[in-house]
């Protein structure tokens, strides 16, 4: 009898060890949660999530837990889907400014940002600790055409599998920061002219060996999304003119003053990747997000880390709610909207059947500044756990 108990104890111990410390073996686990923010399907109180082989098999209040399954008891916790950072530059280098932009050539459409990414960077751990499970790695804004961003999951300890998209599109910048004094373009008019010239060339590109034009050709055909940096009203207006002219499948990045022409953005169904809201931002700027979302613009938050702190991603959403953004929209902006914009909504962005088991477990309401992140799970494996002090 005692022997049997001891044996079962040993088995439980080994399984839980596997789960928490190694977490590599695929298996079924059940997570009991106080509140599950499914994002697409409302909030479930006292629910259960069944994770099978890294995917969510079932979620709900009345779910049959198979026998012999480990139960992770989180009945006093909140669970949200893994946060998606729609634009950041983590893991690129210590000297971020040199690694993000190939400023020698203004048009770098054929360059892949993934080639510069270090999956063992400290930033990755920091991102996990702030609840971010997926990021879009992007080139910077100092080139009119900066390169191709990538979408990666942050469980980079495994050898492969973490790259969702090697090339998620092409990054454009119509901001004044793309101007340089010693290479073309040096003026705004020259910048727009250069971009149009490239797209004109790409439009008529047939065959041959020109990787730059080949990529841009796919952008013109709206096969590949164009991520366009544009901050002020005039920058956004010129971006929209180019989008209309070349029929781009575009996403606006950092449309800070977008609320002033929000109706025009909404009319074109342009999603917006919004830059971080900081505690130090002006009230006027903090109110812009709510206004823009109110006009029907689809928003996703971005940290632009390491320019800013990665923790700012959730803080952005919290500040946006404080200054007039709908609570639901804020949570969507952290998860499903970002997934839809990046084209990975079939796998990520919400807690629903069939999606990846990327979960963030908090000790309170996710949109309360006081609640902190207890545990982060990617593909059913625990990748971060807060240390008890």
């Amino acid at each position, binding site marked *: 009898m005692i022997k049997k108990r001891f044996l079962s104890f040993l088995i439980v111990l080994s399984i839980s060890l596997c789960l928490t410390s190694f977490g590599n073996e695929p298996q079924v686990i059940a997570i009991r949660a106080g509140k599950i923010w499914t994002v697409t399907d409302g909030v479930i109180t006292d629910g259960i999530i069944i994770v099978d082989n890294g995917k969510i098999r079932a979620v709900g209040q009345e779910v049959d837990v198979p026998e012999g399954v480990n139960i992770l008891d989180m009945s006093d916790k909140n669970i949200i889907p893994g946060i998606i950072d729609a634009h950041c530059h983590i893991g690129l280098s210590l000297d971020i400014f040199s690694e993000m932009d190939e400023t020698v050539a203004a048009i770098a459409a054929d360059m892949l940002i993934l080639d510069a990414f270090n999956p063992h960077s400290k930033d990755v751990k920091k991102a996990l600790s702030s609840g971010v499970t997926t990021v879009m790695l992007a080139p910077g804004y100092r080139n009119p055409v900066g390169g191709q961003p990538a979408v990666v999951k942050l469980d980079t300890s495994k050898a492969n599998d973490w790259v969702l998209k090697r090339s998620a599109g092409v990054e454009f910048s119509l901001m004044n920061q793309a101007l340089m004094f010693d290479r073309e373009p040096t*003026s705004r008019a020259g910048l727009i002219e250069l971009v149009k010239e490239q797209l004109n060339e790409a439009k008529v590109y047939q065959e041959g060996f020109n990787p730059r034009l080949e990529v841009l050709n796919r952008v013109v055909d709206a096969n590949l999304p164009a991520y366009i940096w544009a901050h002020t009203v005039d920058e956004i207006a010129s971006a929209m003119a180019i989008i209309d002219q070349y029929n781009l499948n575009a996403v606006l990045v950092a449309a800070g003053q977008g609320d002033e022409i929000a109706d025009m953005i909404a009319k074109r169904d342009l999603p917006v990747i919004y830059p971080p809201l900081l505690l130090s931002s002006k009230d006027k700027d903090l109110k812009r997000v709510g206004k823009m979302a109110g006009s029907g613009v689809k928003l996703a938050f971005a940290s632009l880390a390491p320019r800013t702190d990665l923790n700012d991603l959730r803080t952005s959403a919290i500040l946006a709610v404080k200054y007039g953004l709908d609570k639901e929209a804020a949570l969507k902006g952290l998860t499903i909207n970002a997934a839809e914009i990046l084209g990975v909504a079939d796998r990520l962005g919400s807690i629903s059947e069939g999606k990846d088991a990327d979960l963030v477990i908090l000790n309170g309401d996710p949109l309360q500044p006081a609640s902190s992140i207890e545990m982060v799970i990617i593909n059913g494996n625990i990748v971060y756990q807060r240390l008890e002090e």
Partner: protein
Amino acid sequence: MRIYVILLTFLLLVTVFIAPGWAEVTAVKAGRILTISGEPITDGVILIEDGKIADIGTGIEIPENATVIDAGKSVVMPGFVDASAVQPVRGDLNEQSSEITPTLRISDALDPQSKVIKRVVQTGVTTLFISPGRQNVISGLGVVVKPTGNIPQQMIIKDEAALTVVMDMDPTQGNRIPRREPAVNFYYRRPGTRMAIIWMLRKSFFDAQQQADTEPISDPNLAILSEVLKDEIPIHVNARRAIVIRAALKVADEYGLKLIFQECTEGYRVAEQLAERKIPVVLGPFYYYPGSIGQYREGRQVNWNNAGILAEVGVKVALGSGGQPDTIDILTAATFAVRHGMDRDEALKAITITPAEILGVAERVGSLEKGKDADIVVLSGDPLDVTTRVEKVILNGKTVYQ
């Protein structure tokens, strides 16, 4: 029959009571209206409907629903047209990567949120020509805009209005000629001298001429220049000194170009030639740049009597702020031009209808006539008095400054 009567009465009622309410009507009562195109009107009324002038004259009945702007003691003029205006543009005006950039459109760089816009409106300017910077030999295409609107597209009234060419020494600024040192960036290039500027200009048009018969022209730069050669786009030449103006005339003769001179501070020395060829000039800025050094200072002196002399021999003269609204605004420029010998009526035309004609927008702006845009400036007194100030500016029928 009865039903028809009822219906007719109803329709009549609708037209009487509702229809005028649809269109927003504004009436401006003025002590004196300087229409520019015709005789001045005393105690007149301007009726504005949908941003256009619906009627103008004395004894006009003001509709009941109209918003009345009473300027009974003021002088009313058409909004000023500044053909050498300040640039509400973000960033550098000059694309420095090349000296020949005809495809550059300054309309791509317009900034409706610019603080300059507010300042421009305060000086009574309601239409302005914005050209690319003046440090390239061929700078690019200018645009005619109104200082209103939320996005650049709403400002523009005529895109590709003119090609800006610079023939002073300004394009040589910053250029170095590679001798022993390696050419590390694009500033190691021509032109370094005046003859190189003229050579580059001549070569560009020569290349365009060579390509004129091919269809379509593959090089976008030459495509624009060949349009210029076909007189579809006018050329604004920045030339200050007489020697430069003469050189420009020579190149123009070679290629049959249609010129308009900007700045033109030494225009009085070649007044006869300009009059003979019917070349209009846009004068301004009337301000000495203390920052300019050496060769870039050439021809920067202020010649106030220039306007009078040019106008007298029959040259079409427009006055502009030259991008310096804080020092000499357009109305002050006209005042000083009169003080130094220009005819009064000529001076008033030089800030309204003449620049509008030069820019090719005279069918919309430049004078107060039926059917034109309701761009109106209300002045506290005689426009050519230095103590006069701009009291109110109406742009497309809406008060934008008070």
